[in-house]
């Protein structure tokens, strides 16, 4: 505490202005601390996870762990490749299924629907975004799993168990779509009406206006929405843990069971946490998740700036 603040404390006893100045000074400290909290939290998470992953990183080489397909912690072999491949499959598949639907529904809400129907559809999507993902997983167990097992997987020559990478991807697409929709709607609606009027005025059809003008102008916003969806699929824990089957092997097809990075933590957490090296390996998985999310966010920020410059109207 500085001398000036001590002076304020003395003044606060005698005058009302002193009180107000004291409150002003102290609140300055408090708010500054709160402002640094986000940075501190980020640093603490990264450093603590890094520190705790050091045992495994010093024991095995990073490249060997990331490219080995053999995950059997009890025999001290830590290959992350199956989980990494599973995560990539799930993320890629569910983004492929989710993005067209999300952009389509967002265009419908922002450009086609009006009046009560718009309010109704938009609030339905709000509700869908707020439902906890564990409930999606539970409903999927009795709806999506039999559906995939009896109809989809046999049609593509896959297994008939119903659980597996494809099921997880389908359910995760459903989970993240509402988030992507509401963010995309926001950025479409913030566009000025002159854009629509000008484009329609020079003879473009509504489809041409949306494709060549509106989706471009709202591009950076829609891109952030997609990125948010990516992050949620990538780090999804509960739905994959319920539906992926939990076998740590390289997936043979998109219908086979597998493992993602977060489910690796969930499935091996209980009994193996007692072994220090396994514990370190699982914490290293957490570190990988943080680093990938961080890199993607940073890359996205640069990319978004570029888009904003190129696609400005």
């Amino acid at each position, binding site marked *: 505490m500085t001398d000036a603040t001590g002076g304020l404390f003395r003044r606060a006893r005698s005058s009302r202005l002193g009180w107000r100045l004291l409150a002003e000074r102290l609140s*300055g400290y408090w708010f500054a601390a709160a402002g640094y909290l*986000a940075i501190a939290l980020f640093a603490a998470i990264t450093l603590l996870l890094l520190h705790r992953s050091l045992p495994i990183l010093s024991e095995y080489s990073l490249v060997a762990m990331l490219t080995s397909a053999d995950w059997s912690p009890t025999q001290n072999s830590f290959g992350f490749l199956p989980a990494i491949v599973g995560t990539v499959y799930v993320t890629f598949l569910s983004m492929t299924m989710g993005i067209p639907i999300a952009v389509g529904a967002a265009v419908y809400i922002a450009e086609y629907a009006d009046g009560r129907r718009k309010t109704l559809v938009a609030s339905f999507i709000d*509700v869908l975004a707020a439902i906890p993902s564990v409930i999606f997983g539970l*409903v999927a167990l009795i709806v999506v799993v039999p559906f995939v097992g009896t109809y989809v997987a046999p049609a593509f020559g896959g297994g008939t168990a119903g659980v597996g990478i494809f099921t997880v991807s389908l359910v995760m697409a459903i989970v993240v779509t509402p988030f992507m929709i509401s963010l995309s709607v926001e950025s479409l609606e913030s566009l000025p009406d002159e854009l629509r009027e000008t484009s329609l005025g020079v003879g473009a059809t*509504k489809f041409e206006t949306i494709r060549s003008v509106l989706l471009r102008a709202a591009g950076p916003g829609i891109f952030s929405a997609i990125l948010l969806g990516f*992050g949620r699929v990538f780090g999804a824990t509960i739905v994959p843990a319920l539906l992926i089957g939990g076998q740590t092997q390289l997936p043979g097809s998109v219908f086979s069971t597998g493992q993602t990075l977060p489910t690796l933590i969930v499935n091996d957490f209980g009994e193996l946490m007692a072994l220090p090296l396994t514990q370190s390996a699982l914490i290293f998985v957490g570190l990988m998740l943080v680093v990938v999310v961080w890199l993607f*966010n940073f890359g996205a920020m640069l990319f978004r700036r570029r888009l904003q410059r190129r696609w400005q109207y």
Partner: protein
Amino acid sequence: MDRYRKQRLFGAAVRAAALLVVGVMLLVVSVTLVRGGRVLLTDPTIVVTPPGSRYMLEGTGGFLHAVLGSAFIVGPATAISMVFAVSTATYLQSDYSSERFSESVNMFLNVLWGTPPIVYGVFVLTIIIAVGAQTSLLFGIVAIAIFQYPIMTRYTDEALRAAPDRVRESTYGLGATRFESARMTVRAAAPGIIAGLIMGFARGIGDAATVLFTTGRSTRMPGGLLDAATTLPVLIFDQAMSFNPEVRSHAYAASFVLTVVVLGLILVSKLLAGRYARYTP
């Protein structure tokens, strides 16, 4: 294909996309409400009955422990997180900070917002291991509070940004200090902040990955701050993996309760936002 047919096709496609999303939503909610409602109708007391000693195996008793666990974890966590969220957002939006600094803090908030919840769970777990403590209610509160902090800060930040500049200008004009001006701005942004509070609560109560490792997944009534506990999403997760059909049916009852709470919260947030709108200038 001529351009008008393309336009009609596109119109049909976006309508189909919206219809699909609404249809899926109706399916999920109705399956939860019907399946869960059926279980609850046959025995509504399971919500308020403490679990039996072999609850996860035989399904004796109810899941009051998870209902209480959720309330005792998410309630305090939301309160703690709110204090920090409002402070951080005030710092970013008012004259306490430079624009450059708030931009970089916003970048970190975005990264935190995108960080998977399981990372927060693992982070708190490493803290637990480091201090040599047991998984407990307290660490559940910490984990959920960390999880909610970026979410609520973002909502609060947006609400404060939307507050009219007149508020700040006129309070400074009357000779207010920065602190007093910030207080008035927060009051003007109250509806948005309340909405953010409720959304934070809803996200917190629905999240399982953060509390999975930090509260201990206990099957007893929570005994105190340092005692193991569980929450509704974790309970549903555990029940869904059970081999006993009776325990699995309880999962639907529990998700009925969770869905009703979350839907109720959204409704309340919309109503409150309307009610508080009269405090805004």
